[in-house]
């Protein structure tokens, strides 16, 4: 979590992007100069199915306020089936987080193709706003990691 001059809450968003579609999509929104907030920090993974639930919890522990996972559209996975597994894994994980009372809107899966630069930017703007509304992540943070 970062707090800027006018002390407005600025959420920290971690975005896992698959190398073939979403990361390329993110590059495209760059190439097209489509803005989205600096709150979003992207981590490149070969495929969305590489993202272990532990990574997501880790992000929240360390102070992320929202985590979004982007991959190729179902059917377009570079590895044919990776994102199908991602979809099941994340559905169950998110459902469990929800079950534990952690705000739903802190997590999201979005399918962004390499051509959807606009969608990537839009998604990130929207997601950042949603998380901003929720305020800082307090339910799944590790107090020891909070910045003094």
């Amino acid at each position, binding site marked *: 979590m970062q707090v800027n001059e006018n002390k407005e809450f600025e959420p920290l968003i971690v975005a896992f992007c698959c190398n073939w579609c979403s990361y390329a999509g993110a590059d495209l929104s760059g190439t097209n100069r489509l803005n989205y907030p600096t709150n979003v920090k992207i981590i490149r993974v070969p495929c969305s199915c590489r993202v272990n639930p532990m990574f997501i919890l880790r992000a929240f522990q*360390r*102070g992320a306020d929202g985590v979004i996972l982007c991959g190729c559209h179902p059917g377009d996975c570079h590895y044919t089936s990776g994102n199908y597994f991602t979809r099941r894994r994340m559905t169950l994980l998110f459902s469990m987080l929800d079950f534990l009372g952690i705000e739903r809107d802190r997590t999201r899966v979005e399918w962004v193709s390499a051509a959807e630069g606009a969608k990537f930017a839009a998604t990130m703007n929207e997601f950042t706003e949603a998380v901003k509304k929720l305020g800082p992540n307090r339910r799944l943070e*590790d107090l*020891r*990691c909070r*910045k003094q």
Partner: protein
Amino acid sequence: MLKISLDKLDELFEAISASQTLYIPADREDGSAEYRKYESGMKLSSALNTVRSAKDFFFPQTENLVDFKMEGKNIEVIDIRKESEDFVIFGVRACDARSFTILDKVFLAEPVDSYYKTRREHGTVVTMACTRPSETCFCGVFGIDATAPEGDAACWSDGESIFFEAHNDKGQKFIDSISSLLEEGDTAKLEETREKTRAILKKLPLAGLSTESFGGDRMMEHFNSEKWGELSESCLGCGTCTFVCPTCQCYDIKDFNTGHGIKRFRCWDSCMYSDFTKMAHGNPRLTQLERFRQRFMHKLVYFPANNNGEFGCVGCGRCLSKCPISMNIVKVMKALEVK
């Protein structure tokens, strides 16, 4: 003997907690009890004892020791110890009270553990004599009298009132601090209750248990006993016995990287764990048998060997009721007993 009527208990707690933090055994929704920081209206648990022992107060499960701050490539050491405040633990049972003297032998012996020491100094232990011991109790086996608990101050209930007695200055200070609420009382009924309890204690299924066969002089004999295999075969290697045990005192020290610094903390460890005392060369006890043996050898042989005969067990019976597979020190003692 000074007493207070049971229905004035709330006033008593209010009074104590007014001057310092008070912890009492309170009931949980599931019927079990745990120590809680007293807040108005909180009731004293009727349960015999708490699931977790009282050792947490002096030897918490996790404890931050020191911090390191990292600026780029520089590291600075930060002492995070705060001036700790006085507190009272009320209603400690005889077994747990004895466990403190055992922990003292470990932590107050040179080199003194300053963290433990400060807590010990600031804490006042007010014990409460047992009236309804359970089948799992065997404190008597280790020379503990459940009807005459140790501690800085002790108290007894006769069903109507609670009677107080100081065992040392700290205890006396405590009683003085609440003397306004206390009155002289007749202990006749109390004696009755204690008699009843003593009678029960004699009848306890484990009363007959003997420590004869144990102690330092039988070290190799027990160490090499072929019984360990059978005893440990069903052990899951979990840490339940260790963590509910009032006398287990092993811990591990770890560094946690918070991203903007390092927190060095210690936390309970269990000799039942596969990575217990793991060193550069690896792990000294590779099989569950060895780990299992270590725990009981420590309590029944090594500890007395190093502490002139004092055993590392107080017979609180927690491991008896909590072990997932019901293997426990009593079964071990019976199996290893030398006829």
